[in-house]
């Protein structure tokens, strides 16, 4: 995972509440078996007037000029400003991949949906929760004639506004540590392999009905119609 320390970047104001992951990346793009190729379809249903399919490039599409992503002011955006409950709905991590690939490194909102929030940290996308009054001020700033830049300083847990006002934010210290150091989440857990094995052995004693490889295998071959190829 790419480490995250500090960025200074342009703010893209997306003034909608309850933005769901179906809007962030619509289902027709989830057929890919890869982790990349989603950035051109970020907010596809809002960004384009025609229905897109996998493999099209944006210049083959009809742009929706009313949508903020297509506003000439925000073409270098790295910070997405959103309303409450951002990322609700489907667990698709493709939503995070699409944001990152488009160039977004930070999402600022008054609240996030749980699964999306968790998915962000696995990929080096920083979700920041700020109070409504600050969000309101940021929307006002970001909607002006000239786009604005913010500095997001993760070690200092602060957002610096253009007028040098500094807003502090909370973050789980473990998640912060992982992001700053770009740590391998699976590697961290595998370092505890011995404890997991010890737990599993005791658990197997207590709940033997959950460890039934032989029976499961027998059940799996029951009425199987065979080879799928």
């Amino acid at each position, binding site marked *: 995972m790419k480490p995250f320390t500090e960025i200074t970047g342009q703010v893209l104001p997306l003034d909608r509440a*309850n933005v769901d992951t*179906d809007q962030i990346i619509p289902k027709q793009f989830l057929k890919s078996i890869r982790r990349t190729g989603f950035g051109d379809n970020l907010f596809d249903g809002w960004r384009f007037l025609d229905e897109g399919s996998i493999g099209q490039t944006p210049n083959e599409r009809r742009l929706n000029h009313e949508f903020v992503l297509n506003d000439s002011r925000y073409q270098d955006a790295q910070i997405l400003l959103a309303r409450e409950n951002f990322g609700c709905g*489907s667990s698709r991590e493709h939503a995070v991949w699409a944001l990152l690939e488009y160039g977004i490194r930070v999402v600022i909102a008054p609240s996030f949906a749980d*699964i999306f929030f968790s998915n962000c940290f696995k990929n080096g996308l920083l979700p920041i929760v700020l109070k409504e009054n600050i969000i309101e001020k940021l929307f006002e700033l970001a909607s002006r004639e000239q786009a604005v830049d913010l500095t997001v300083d993760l070690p200092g847990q602060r957002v610096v506004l253009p007028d040098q006002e500094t807003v502090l934010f909370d973050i789980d210290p*473990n998640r912060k540590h992982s992001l700053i150091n770009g740590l391998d989440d699976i590697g961290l857990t595998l370092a*505890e392999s011995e404890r997991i094995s010890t737990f599993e052995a005791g658990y197997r004693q207590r709940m033997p009905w959950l*460890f*039934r490889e032989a029976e499961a*295998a027998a059940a799996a071959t029951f009425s199987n119609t065979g080879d799928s190829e």
Partner: protein
Amino acid sequence: MSGKTLYDKVWDAHLVGQRADGQSMVYIDRHLLHEVTSPQAFEGLKLAGRKPWRIDANLATPDHNVPTDNRAAGLDGITDLIAREQVVTLDNNCREYGITQFDILDPRQGIVHVIGPEQGATLPGMTIVCGDSHTSTHGAFAALAQGIGTSDVEHVLATQCLVQQKAGNFTVQVDGQLPELVSAKDLVLAIIGAIGTAGATGHTIEYRGSAISALSMEGRMTLCNMSIEAGARAGMVGVDDTTLAYLKGRPFAPSGSLWDQAEAYWRTLVSDADAQFDRQLVLDAASLVPQITWGTSPEMVIGVDAAAPDPRAAADAQEADGIERALTYMGLSANQPISGVSLDRVFIGSCTNSRIEDLRVVASVVSGKKVAKNIKQALIVPGSGLVKAQAEAEGLADIFVAAGFDWRAAGCSMCLAMNPDRLQPEERCASTSNRNFEGRQGHAGRTHLVSPAMAAAAAIAGHFVDVREVA
């Protein structure tokens, strides 16, 4: 010290401990896999040279992409080559690692959240994960079941653990008796309407009360399924006789003395009488009416006897803007009564409502009647191959076909329209699925979420109608 909630008990039983960085490691008993959110996880595993921790904890099936017709053709029936590659990739990964899969030709294939319980692969007290937000369904069995992203799919494959923070406890207490033809679907829609789509964010919901005890397992699954639409990653119902009766004799469930041993433990999987909840909602089942969503979020829901809202009556400008946008998208006007709104398609299916009980209700409403002429398509997609076979054996399929419904093979189908079943722009659909987001059932399509009984009545009438007046 106060007692434990059901969620506390299942959490505590699976807590491996704190990782070096202080985060909790929770042991996972069952990992369900499907074709859409697993390929990148398997690839990640391979690239890092890692192996799955415990093969027998995994169970896989293709469901999101599979076509619901021409299924005898198997993989050749998937005409979308990109979708086909995804299903083939799941086949290959399962074969390579020896993971049990009910593949596209297996009679047990189906929606992952239907087949888990159906096989007894979902058991009380389990921790269950799947790269799908509707994993909350399995909480009906007093399991802690949560949707996860693809990075966590890889993490669970590699370590058999999920690293997360414990959520809060939220109880939804529902007493009284649901009126006839008012179902678990109406109940959960009413709950989401009451607390909103972020109402239970950061919490696990436990559904309790006499109305919940009276629900079948199918009803409880419908209820827990849509917990995520209220913001909760997991929803749960405590173990009772209904739970155990459903599971007994299922292929993956224990039998003999192992069952007895398990049952003794499972019986403890209810919240203690003195358990404390962080938040609660109390509802009276007897006052519920059938629910219909009018907008583009599950919280935009009203009773069948009500009208779409008026943005001028909104609390603030932002809410007014949201209502306005949803009305425009849905092609409705402010204060328009929902009953009488004309429909183009009807979809009965999805992990919310595609089980045998759902199909029986539909059959009881449509038996001897005909789908209205203005309905272009009325689709019924069973949740699994076994549900399909059972519906055919019970004569339900004959009733559907005689009434003019399209009777299909199992899969997610038009719930999210990744396969060929979808709405055309501006088509309006009565759907038993779980999400009415913009474009969910097809680009610019208009989705109204309802119960199976209400969808059935709408198919016959050609427009929304109170099923209690026509059944």
